[in-house]
């Protein structure tokens, strides 16, 4: 459950960072004109904060050692997943990210408080 939550946060954070990159912004939001500098910066900061938050969640939920290992591992999986999606199915990235985030929030509601 914790893993699902961490993964959802990590994926969302990475996608936020990706949106701030022109190459991927064109893939994710083809209709939009390029982001303003301020907006791109906001995306980057937001993404970084999400990643940091996911690390804190991992350390808290899984303990120091395992939490750190799990966070790096999930980061790896998320980056690889995004690389494949951007290559073969860029239009699905946002949808998949939203699903992952919803699943993560569901994970909180279902299991974590217990």
């Amino acid at each position, binding site marked *: 459950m914790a*893993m699902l939550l961490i993964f959802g946060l990590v994926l969302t954070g*990475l996608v936020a*960072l*990706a949106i701030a*990159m022109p*190459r*991927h912004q064109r893939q994710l939001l083809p209709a939009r004109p390029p982001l303003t500098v301020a907006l791109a910066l906001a995306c980057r900061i937001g993404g970084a904060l999400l990643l940091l938050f996911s690390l804190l969640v991992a350390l808290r939920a899984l*303990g*120091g*050692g*395992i939490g750190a*290992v*799990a966070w*790096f*591992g*999930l*980061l*790896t*999986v998320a*980056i*690889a997943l*995004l*690389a*494949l999606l*951007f*290559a*073969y199915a860029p239009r699905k990235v946002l949808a998949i990210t939203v699903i992952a985030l919803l699943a993560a929030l569901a994970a909180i509601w279902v299991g974590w408080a217990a």
Partner: protein
Amino acid sequence: MKDFFRQSMAWLHTWSGLVPGWILYFVFLTGTLAYFDTEIDRWMKPEMPPARFDLPAALLVEVAQQRLVAQAPEAQRWFVGLPLDRNQPYLRLFWETADGERGNELLDPATRAPYAARETGGGQLLYRMHWNLHYLPRDLAWWLVGAATLGMFVALITGIVIHVKIFKDFFTFRPAKGQRSWLDAHNVLSVSALPFHLMITFTGLLFMASTYMPLIVAAQYGTSKEGQRRFVQEMFGATRETPAAGVAQPGVALAQLLASAEARWGGGMVDSIEVINPGDANARVIIHHGGDGGVLRSGESLTFHGASGGLLDTRAAVTSTPKAVRDVLLGLHEGLFAGPLLRWIYVFSGLAGTAMIATGLVLWVVKRRQRAAKSGVGGRGLALVERINIGTVIGLPVAIGAYFWANRLLPAELPGRGDWEVHAMFLTWLALLAHAALRPVAHAWTEQFAIATLIFALLPLLNVLTTDRHLLRSLPAGDWIFAGFDLAMLAIAAGFFWGLCRLPRRIAATPASDVPEPLAELRS
């Protein structure tokens, strides 16, 4: 000037990666499989019943002691491993005599005798090959693997240094663009799992540190054996060195000492018991705590006097910070603490590393062929690397598939069948290297992808024909070791099938026109 630096680091990256590349591929592939060593062990011994972790430790210890007294009363050292989790699924006995004779058994607590299962190296052998290689003298193998690992570490650091667009290209993979795609793939595989690659490589060196850097120990402890022993004692405790008194004295029942340990730690925490000089007046019993499930490899241990049963020493899990750092680092490498999901993530990262090496090897050939096409200078080096690439990148996995096939096909009574399974593996690898050498390159890739697809796709079918723990039974029974293994074989086959459909064209025939100047991407 910056340009010289980047060029020289690029050169160093290429050669520190290429020269040990095939050894590294072997090490990474067997190492990745080693994360499922006990699962592979169990698939390769279908006669064994499913592991159970609910038997009381006292019973297991009593059974173990009875067997050890019968089998190895004169031993210098006994070891009993208790089944706590997938790291040790069965009750394991090990002993060593003064003349170096060793014994190893998995004991069935119900029959109080070893399980009757086919002789096989199992997954443990793949795990040990990961640093011992095979057929080579141990020291030579360690030297080769160590040198390769240093090369890997240099390749990683230089790779980071030269990867100019590391953030811009974070998620970038552009398929079907020739050399560009191979470089993208190599980059994504390296960067996405970079923390893992750095950790696994550095800690790999650490495992054998005293072998690779003996002078540092010697400078402090002297070059004599006595000096080396003192270092080991200061790190791990001196109990194992206790000399035998030469006077026989019956030891206390291990179950009694176990009870002391469990009173102190709670039930189910003892993961192993060592007896030094069993049956002697100077016997010692070391009881090990299984650890708290975290990354730290070591747990507390209690040392008892073997004859009197008195508690002599308690050794904490953390004796000093540097040792704890070392233990955490080694623990990260081994991943013994990992539950199922985390274990799969370890395997994913390991496969990324294996594929990183493979794509690097292919990339070198593709680039060289470009250059050769332009300048007309071919090179026997290119042809050699190309052929070994095929025979190793595809050939080695096929060879491991053959190892599994041999496990199912070789008769149980064949003497040394465990050795023959391994011979089958290496003979297959040799055959595929020969095939790669003899066939035209494009055909070699295609045919080997096809062979790989078949050898893995048909393995579950072979399982149906040779055992009764096949998919049709294991899936409904929830026998996840067997079902999981067979399904994994099908997934691997699917992967090779995808490779068969998409890759041979792209490796063997790189369009001359599409690729920019070889170093351009390093310059931008």
